[in-house]
């Protein structure tokens, strides 16, 4: 077995489009990549797997010329390859689609694409080439539209077309599907397969293991900056892949089935104009969540998730009588009063919305725990009690930090997310609403967070999970619904729901059609 792998390794090396030899990059206090070596074949979709902080991003940045390796060599088509900047990488035929879209919202599609090219043709010629290439790859795009008005899927098309116009030999994709609907993912995969059939290699980074299994032919697995394994993902199960990444058995969240209880929170016909310029207005949102139940709300980002959370948390007020908590009208109450009554929320944006990055964990614990944990006494803060509360969160949720005096911003995303969720869970809410509870969190931490939400529901709380991660919603929710342009589909039981049905709900089809 080992011999086989070595042999394939050698032949791979000989025919490779690109090879990496002993790439090493250290930052103060952490070695991001340590002696990373692998090779990419022409026309291959090569997955790069690893948890957050495993060094995937640093690695692709080195290939794209954004980061200079401390040691090691790369070759491209058997010639040494050491791009000094992204322009040099692009000139050699390496293109990259970024995880957080590197787009300019106020500029047009054509302008965005021109900025990603080194010698763009004239505006008119570029526009016609954009039309041509986008048609050829089944990704229709209007060059004159302003990017700020496009959907997430269309924005990604802009990035991909920007790369394709340069006829890349190697296309690097960093988490390309995290914001796409299943239908959009299908279109993307079709495009990628067409590209590989034309000989382009693709280096593909994703957390979504099922996608990797269906798309990639080869996988390199990174853990703590070191290549720990290579495999053919088509021959492994998603769970096996996850365990290779984590290097440990993966805990799958579970709970015992229970009958849902009385209605805990209900929204009836909530409409609200979005407070932000590029936001989405909520239109006639009606939902009900019962005690002991997990309601999953899917949908592509920017379809009203933030607004829905705001109207439930009390940051935005609703019309009187449209929101009730355990039968009491709360639609016009401010956030503090809602917290006091047992409705807690954890918004999506960790740094700045659900936590204050510059403040310590103790202070952050106080911010939402003040009322329910009685951390304020006649206007004075009870620091000892607050610190104990913070320590309790850190302990119960395995938050890796030197102590509660550390600034929230100094924690890694996964750890801070565990803290933020733990802070609400430990306050014993009657209703907990979370938005994107595991966004950018690695597999082990995500499993822990999901388990805590399930435990909470088990204890009789109602939980609403707003997420773009469909696998997550399928795993933990009892009922599923989706937001589309501020409208909420009719919730349906999660059990037995097919990907097509979910896609239709996310795409805004009527709930009745889905049910039928």
């Amino acid at each position: 077995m080992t011999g086989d792998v070595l042999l394939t390794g050698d032949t791979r090396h000989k025919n490779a489009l690109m090879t990496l030899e002993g790439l090493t990059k250290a930052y103060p206090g952490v070695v991001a990549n340590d002696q990373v070596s692998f090779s990419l074949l022409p026309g291959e979709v090569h997955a790069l797997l690893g948890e957050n902080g495993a060094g995937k991003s640093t690695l692709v940045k080195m290939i794209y010329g954004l980061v200079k390796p401390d040691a090691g060599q790369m070759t491209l088509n058997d010639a040494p390859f050491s791009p000094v900047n992204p322009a040099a990488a692009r000139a050699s035929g390496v293109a990259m689609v970024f995880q957080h879209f590197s787009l300019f919202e106020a500029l047009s599609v054509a302008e965005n694409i021109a900025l990603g090219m080194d010698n763009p043709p004239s505006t008119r010629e570029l526009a016609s080439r954009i039309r041509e290439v986008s048609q050829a790859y089944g990704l229709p795009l209007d060059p004159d539209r302003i990017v700020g008005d496009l959907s997430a899927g269309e924005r990604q098309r802009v990035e991909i077309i920007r790369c394709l116009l340069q006829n890349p030999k190697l296309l690097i994709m960093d988490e390309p599907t995290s914001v796409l609907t299943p239908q959009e993912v299908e279109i993307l995969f079709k495009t990628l397969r067409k590209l590989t059939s034309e000989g382009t290699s693709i280096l593909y980074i994703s957390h979504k293991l099922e996608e990797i299994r269906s798309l990639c032919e080869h996988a390199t697995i990174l853990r703590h900056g070191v290549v720990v394994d290579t495999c053919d993902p088509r021959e492994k199960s998603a769970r096996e892949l996850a365990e290779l990444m984590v290097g440990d058995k993966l805990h799958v969240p579970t709970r015992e089935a229970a009958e849902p209880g009385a209605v805990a929170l209900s929204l009836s016909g909530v409409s609200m104009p979005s407070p932000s310029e590029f936001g989405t207005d909520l239109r006639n949102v009606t939902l009900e969540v019962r005690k002991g139940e997990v309601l999953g709300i899917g949908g592509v980002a920017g379809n009203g998730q933030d607004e829905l959370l705001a109207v439930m948390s009390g940051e935005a007020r609703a019309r009187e009588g449209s929101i009730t908590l355990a039968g009491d009208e709360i639609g016009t109450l401010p956030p503090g009063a809602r917290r006091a009554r047992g409705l807690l929320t954890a918004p999506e944006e960790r740094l700045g919305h659900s936590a204050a990055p510059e403040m310590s964990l103790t202070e952050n614990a106080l911010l939402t725990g003040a009322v329910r944990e009685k951390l304020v006494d006649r206007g004075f803060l009870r620091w000892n009690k607050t610190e104990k509360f913070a320590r309790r969160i850190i302990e119960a949720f395995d938050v890796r930090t030197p102590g509660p005096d550390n600034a929230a911003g100094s924690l890694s995303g996964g750890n801070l997310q565990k803290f933020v969720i733990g802070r609400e869970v430990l306050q014993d809410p009657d209703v907990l609403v979370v938005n994107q509870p595991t966004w950018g969190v690695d597999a082990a931490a995500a499993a822990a967070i999901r388990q805590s939400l399930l435990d909470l529901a088990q204890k009789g709380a109602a939980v609403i999970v707003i997420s773009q991660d469909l696998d997550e919603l399928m795993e933990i929710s009892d009922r599923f619904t989706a937001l589309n342009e501020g409208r909420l589909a009719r919730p349906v039981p999660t059990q037995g729901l097919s990907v097509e049905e979910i896609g239709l709900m996310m795409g805004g089809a009527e709930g009745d059609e889905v049910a039928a």
Partner: protein
Amino acid sequence: MDLGQINPILLLASLMVAATPILLAAIGEAVVEKSGVLNLGVEGMMITGAVVGFAIGVNTGAPSIGFVAAAFAGAALSMLFGVLVLYLKSNQVATGLGLTLFGLGLSALIGKPFEGIKAPTMAKYEVPLLSDIPALGPILFRHDPMVYVSLIIVALTWYVLARTRAGLILRGVGENHDAAHALGYKVIRVRLMAIAFGGACAGLGGAYISLVRVPQWVEGMTAGAGWIALAIVVFASWRPWRVLLGAYLFGGISVLQLNLQAAGVAIPVEVLAMSPYLITILVLVVISLRGNHGAPGSLGREFHATH
């Protein structure tokens, strides 16, 4: 009260002169803000340009050399701001305010020996043929060269921003500096150049006040023109032609209200004096109410290259 003594042709002609300093400063600041930097030091750069331009103009006897020196002085002062903000990552608002205070103090110091001196006059440039057109000629085509230079700067700014690759990169840097960096553009270099351009324009604007409009050196003579320029940039939605409109509107009403005061109109002087500010802001607010009035996405945000 005698409104008949207001000569509309003279009024319109002096409108352009009154508006030019603000126009110059505002178009420069518009470019700076388009690149994503908020420089509140316009007033300080203007007054420094005013005193340096005046000093050099008086000493050489040539206003044109004074203008060139003023542009360099404004740019030099703006580089101080650029280094502090871009390399040392100081806060843009605080640094900009500091620059204004610094410029006011520095100019008072430099200007002491020049108080009470009259500036060398700048010859009017009469555009051949066109200046002979009745009415239009005196209004549009019999001005000093700086008026035309300022209009050319506006046109060039529009052309570069809207039609050239350099302008596209500048807008990209201002819209999303992280994305621009990821694509390999030199965010700091682009911004430094924009800041220098803004400083040079503000310097020219200041020198226009001390060399043409007044024309002598008085301490603190810019009297808030830099702040008006900043406001015009915002209300003009960062668009060059609207900046021109805003500046001329402000200049026009300033001149008109002075004429009305002189004519003894029965409106309190205080109301007349505040009218340019009020009306300019009102008109530009109404314009920017409809349509996108997008500030550059990275305006005022600190840029940290992550690698």
